[in-house]
């Protein structure tokens, strides 16, 4: 196979780079995408070209961590002989600022003898405002090929592909340009003036575009409607996770149950059939059921992200979050932390203040991530009645979910506030001011969001699935032997479980749940898989009652269920999150103390919850 040559995609934040990247590579890109801001360099291949999508940058003088990643990556790649061209994405609605970056890139690329191609993206939007960009004149003035495209509508992409494939491959000798890659100290004023002149001469009039944005901002950032809309959106988000996904969850549960019975029948009686039914369908199946909820969460976060609303939410929340030692920019990581803490912690790279970035990293694991959802859903489904109020709009179960999410948010904010107060005035971590661009509002494209959410949910299943399956198999073996199905109490696992029972009794939990908690220190969602497997072994032939029902009949009280929920809301049970924190902070001490602190906090809070519920029950 011949060597692939690289196309580097660079541009301002919100210029539609990632959408263009997705369009150019189709769905053939590596699944390395996580929700939140693009904070890493993503690669995808198509037509013998390898595209690299860089995080958005305003200039080559990087300020935040994600910009540093992009600038360092660009300076290295531009001197690499395999790099065929730099594709600079200009935003037609923000032409002056886009050109500033291009004018900074040009001398660097020329010094490395790397060709540059520019595209004017989001043309559809300015055309609908009755404006236009004089693309041919812009190309003449800049001295590089420029194409007008719309990544959203797909116009101009065929021409762009042709242009990129026709860029002559660089000669190896050319690429041996100076390896000194220090950014040129740019005369800001000169480049800024030139960008302004070009934008004025060939671009649309700025005030036309800002008018509609200002009208919407007047509403969404107003003192009364701003917070109201925000609160409504958040409540809607949490309700939707539960209500939209339930038909899909029922369908998956039904299909898996049917398949499991068929498979067990086909395998005939014996160990193999037991294994299939308990470990594969019981263990893995009880985790797969919750994938629709994860998917719905990704869809909603993706929609908010693409519409431009997240920037406004950051502005609205800057003051309130400052009180807790965080920044308005902490909002996006904290929100995507509700999907998964790992990409959320990586998204903190866009926070310019190292101090607030650290506090955001420490608060993020408290957000109720999608791995907690299976546990919440199982226990809420088993212990909270499905009453609805206000004509079905507000459900008791949705409310219980909301309370657990709120518990996580409040705990994270309080921990951050305490750390902030405790370390105030102490040297060590720099602070930096809040500067956020408010991008134009855009109608999110349904198809890219659905596709993206599907890829992300798939990646989640793939990553988590392996661990869960491995744990499930081990648990099954320990619980099945030496006496076979229906003898869980006398199994090796039963023996192990009694060991930890004293620790679990203050929470009102029996040894089976204790074992499930222990296994879930690898990853939370393992809890449901473990319980599913144990339930399968114990029930042996009788699979009529669901896992939630079996918790009741197994003697789990309401108080213990509440304690368990509180424990899961607050505990740090995710090896991958700890690994990411270690990588992002460059410290072992931080993840270790976070783990110990969160576990102690969760255990204490759960024990208190259990006692309070017991008291209420007897009173």
């Amino acid at each position: 196979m011949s060597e692939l040559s690289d196309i580097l995609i660079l541009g301002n934040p919100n210029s539609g780079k990632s959408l263009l990247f997705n369009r150019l590579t189709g769905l053939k890109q590596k699944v390395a995408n996580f929700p939140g801001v693009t904070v890493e360099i993503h690669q995808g291949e198509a037509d013998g070209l390898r595209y690299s999508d860089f995080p958005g940058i305003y200039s080559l003088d990087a300020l935040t961590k994600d910009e540093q990643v992009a600038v360092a990556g660009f300076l290295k790649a531009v001197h690499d002989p395999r790099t065929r061209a730099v594709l600079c994405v200009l935003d037609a609605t923000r032409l002056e600022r886009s050109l500033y970056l291009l004018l900074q890139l040009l001398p660097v690329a020329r010094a490395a003898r790397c060709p540059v191609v520019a595209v004017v993206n989001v043309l559809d939007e300015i055309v609908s405002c009755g404006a236009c960009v004089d693309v041919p004149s812009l190309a003449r003035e800049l001295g590089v090929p420029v194409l007008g495209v719309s990544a959203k509508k797909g116009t101009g992409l065929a021409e762009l592909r042709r242009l990129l494939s026709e860029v002559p491959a660089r000669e190896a000798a050319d690429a041996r340009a100076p390896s000194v890659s220090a950014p040129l100290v740019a005369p800001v004023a000169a480049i800024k003036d030139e960008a302004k002149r070009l934008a004025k001469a060939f671009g649309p009039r700025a005030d036309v575009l800002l008018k509609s944005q200002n009208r919407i901002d007047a509403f969404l950032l107003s003192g009364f409607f701003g917070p109201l809309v925000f609160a409504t959106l958040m409540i809607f988000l949490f309700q939707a996770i539960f209500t939209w996904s339930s038909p899909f969850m029922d369908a998956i549960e039904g299909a898996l149950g049917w398949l499991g019975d068929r498979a067990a029948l086909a395998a005939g009686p014996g160990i193999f059939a037991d294994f299939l039914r308990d470990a594969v369908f019981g263990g893995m199946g009880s985790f797969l059921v919750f994938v629709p909820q994860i998917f719905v969460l990704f869809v909603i976060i993706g929609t908010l992200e693409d519409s431009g609303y997240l920037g406004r939410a950051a502005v609205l929340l800057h003051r309130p979050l400052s009180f807790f030692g965080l920044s308005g920019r902490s909002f996006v990581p904290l929100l995507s932390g509700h999907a998964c803490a790992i990409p959320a912690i990586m998204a903190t790279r866009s926070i310019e203040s190292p101090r607030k970035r650290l506090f955001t990293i420490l608060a993020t694991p408290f957000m109720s991530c999608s791995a907690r959802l299976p546990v919440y859903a199982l226990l809420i489904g088993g212990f909270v009645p499905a009453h609805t109020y206000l004509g079905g709009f507000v459900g008791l179960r949705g409310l219980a979910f909301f309370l657990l999410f709120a518990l996580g948010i409040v705990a994270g904010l309080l921990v951050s506030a305490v750390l902030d107060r405790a370390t105030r005035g102490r040297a060590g971590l720099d602070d930096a001011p809040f500067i956020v661009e408010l991008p134009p509002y855009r109608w999110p494209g349904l198809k890219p969001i659905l596709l993206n959410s599907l890829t992300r949910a798939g990646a989640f299943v793939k990553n988590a699935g392996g661990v869960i399956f491995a744990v499930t198999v081990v648990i099954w073996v320990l619980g099945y032997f030496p006496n076979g199905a229906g003898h869980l109490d006398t199994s090796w696992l039963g023996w192990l479980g009694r060991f930890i029972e004293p620790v679990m009794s203050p929470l009102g939990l029996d040894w089976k749940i204790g074992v499930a908690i222990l296994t879930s220190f690898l990853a939370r969602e393992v809890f449901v898989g473990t319980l599913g497997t144990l339930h399968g072994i114990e029930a042996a032939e009788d699979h009529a009652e669901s896992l939630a029902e079996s918790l009741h009949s197994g003697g789990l009280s309401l108080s213990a269920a509440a304690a368990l929920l509180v424990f899961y809301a607050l505990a740090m049970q995710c090896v991958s999150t700890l690994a990411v924190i270690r990588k992002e902070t460059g410290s072992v001490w931080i993840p270790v103390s976070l783990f110990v602190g969160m576990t102690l906090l969760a255990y204490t809070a759960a024990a208190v919850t259990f006692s309070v519920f017991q008291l209420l029950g007897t009173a």
Partner: protein
Amino acid sequence: MRIILKMTSPTLQALRPLQEARVLGFAGELREDFRHRLRELGFREGALVRCVRRTPFGGPGVFEVSGAIFSLGAEIATQVQVSEVGSA
């Protein structure tokens, strides 16, 4: 009272909605890399800045400069000195 206020030049933080002013310079204590970024975004000496709106709870102000909209927290808006304000 009025005399005391005039002794320090107004900053972006003092701009009310729909008021415009030109950037004069930056407070002495503002770090060089932040100055640099502000200039790159358009907040450079002589640039015309318009306050689009203030946000609830004394939150960050929203400003229009060179065809884009930015929101600046109080901690940085108080570091950008502007000329006498006038309404648009």
